């Protein structure tokens, strides 16, 4: 297996705070790679650095051996990296169909056409139907996106990333704010997309149980630095992880229990 995405000595400072401290991560093609860590570990900052929404203070990001650190945001998607956000980011007052169709259209070269109706570009409509089927929103295609329940909005967002058929999917807490019973549904969706499409998925998650069952590899971050990396089994056996991450969780759980 080859490395598809690589972060080399990635560093980001906000004033005196070092949010990401010289992190090295290699993500292998076709794997589901999770990045976990307690609150404030720098997961999302790391994520933004890799996907190009933030510029690093130092270090480089490589995609298939190519330096993509300074690539503008709108170009990373054309290279094959799709990303979702922790906060749902859709076009709230457009229909579900139009949300996905816009994502499909971005892939092609017709976006500067001014005179033909967008309904005449069948390829994007067909792709939209395909994606809506994949994320299970076909029945809600004509609803205005803002009227969808939160769980469906997360699915819609997943669909918008899937639309251009990227090689790498970067998901920042896709289950954030979802009801507990909806979480497995979405995670199964993510896993099936990864397996059937032979895609690479980079997942930032807070929910430990979810990550353990679906991941091929796990990277643990703590206070901006890389703490451990390995298979789920290795990670759950790692003492440093237990003290830093699990320990903290158990401590807070214990505190909640006693108070």
């Amino acid at each position, binding site marked *: 297996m080859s490395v598809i995405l690589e972060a080399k000595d990635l560093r980001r400072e906000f004033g005196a705070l070092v949010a990401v401290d010289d992190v090295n991560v290699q993500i292998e093609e076709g794997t589901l790679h999770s990045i976990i860590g307690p609150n404030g570990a720098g997961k999302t900052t790391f994520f933004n650095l890799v996907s190009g929404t933030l510029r690093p203070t130092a270090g480089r990001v490589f995609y298939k051996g190519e330096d993509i650190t300074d690539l503008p945001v709108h170009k990373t998607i054309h290279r094959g990296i799709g990303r979702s956000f922790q906060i749902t980011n859709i076009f709230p007052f457009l229909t579900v169909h139009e949300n996905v169709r816009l994502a499909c259209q971005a892939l092609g070269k017709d976006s500067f056409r001014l005179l*033909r109706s967008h309904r005449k570009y069948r390829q994007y409509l067909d792709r939209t139907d395909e994606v809506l089927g994949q994320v299970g929103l*076909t029945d809600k*295609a004509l609803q205005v996106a803002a009227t969808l329940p939160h769980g469906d909005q997360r699915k819609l967002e997943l669909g918008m990333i899937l639309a251009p058929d990227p090689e790498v999917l970067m998901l920042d807490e896709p289950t954030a704010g979802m009801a507990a019973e909806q979480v497995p549904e979405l995670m199964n969706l993510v896993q099936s997309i990864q397996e059937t499409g032979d895609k690479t998925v980079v997942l930032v998650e807070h929910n430990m149980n979810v990550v353990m069952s679906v991941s091929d590899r796990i990277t643990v971050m703590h206070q901006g630095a890389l703490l451990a990396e390995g298979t789920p089994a290795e990670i759950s056996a790692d003492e440093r992880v237990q003290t830093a991450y699990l320990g903290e969780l158990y401590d807070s759980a214990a505190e909640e229990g006693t108070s």
Partner: protein
Amino acid sequence: MTSTTLDQSAGLGDWLRRRRGLLASFALLVAFPFVISIIVDGQGLAAVVNNDLGNARFLQGLAIEVFILGIYAISYDLILGVTGILSFGHAMFFAVGAYGFGILLKTFELAWPVAVLVVVIAAIIQAFLFALVLPRVHGITYALVTLGFASVFWIVIQSSDLADYAGAEIGLQGVESPAWFLDTTNERFIFYLLCLGIFFGIYVLYQRIVDSPAGRVFVAIRENEDRALMLGYNTFWFKTLVLVIASITAALAGMIHTMHQPIVTPNVAGLFWTVTALLVILIGGMGTITGALIGAAVYRLLEYYLDRWFGGASGLLIGAAYVLLVLYVPFGIVGTWRARAVRIKQGRDRLLRLFTGGDDGRTPARE
């Protein structure tokens, strides 16, 4: 499911049916000079073609002003209503066309097609100037910067140094009509038809633009620009494209204005002229394109008749009318009409479900 969003098979009959509103209003406006000639002047149809008219001639002129205002406002609707760029420099887009065309014809004595070409090139350059600041400032700051641009133009155009060209505070006058069909004095009816044609042409063009792949991206930028960027759209170039289209359109309106009016005053570069565009699309319905045209008619006629009936008090009445409008018709005439149409459709669907044994869960079927 999504096939409902696709359009049905095309064909001439189908096309005519879908465009019936447009075609009917076009026919009405072609007939308008004849109708008012009979009603107002009691004259025959030949009088219209021969330009042998009294009051009806003035009303034709008023209609031409509505067309000019409509073309001008529609370009502002593309910028503000469709794409969501807040620009307060729109009067400059119009004034560059109005002054540019007049000066090129009068002082430089260019042939009119050459003058049109030069104005279009100037409009494109101007749009790029407005686009240049786009990545640097957003929202209200962009509005202020563009207001600054327009103010500089407004001051320069009435400076005494340029009096030989632009006529200082008095304005540009004495521009002679360069072609027989551009002569609003002697060939009023032909000029009316020309303006009507351009007005409808621009309208159909804009409808197509908003419905095109690029137009959908404009709407996406209005809705959530960051998301559009993340989807892979280089939003800067789309916004630049919007400014170029709007700038050329507004310049076109300005050129017709120069042909129609005996004097081009510095007012067409002033802030109030931008506010006029804003009011027109507020009246008509922002982002609806059709609203800009309806708003232009309502605005111009309201302004004219209130001034005629109430004189000095008209400004106060117009102000009151806007307050009422914003309070009770916040989405404008077309916007409110469309929302109402949706509600009627929903109501009808619910009724149908009621009678056909609906199964949507909300309206249980009655036995």
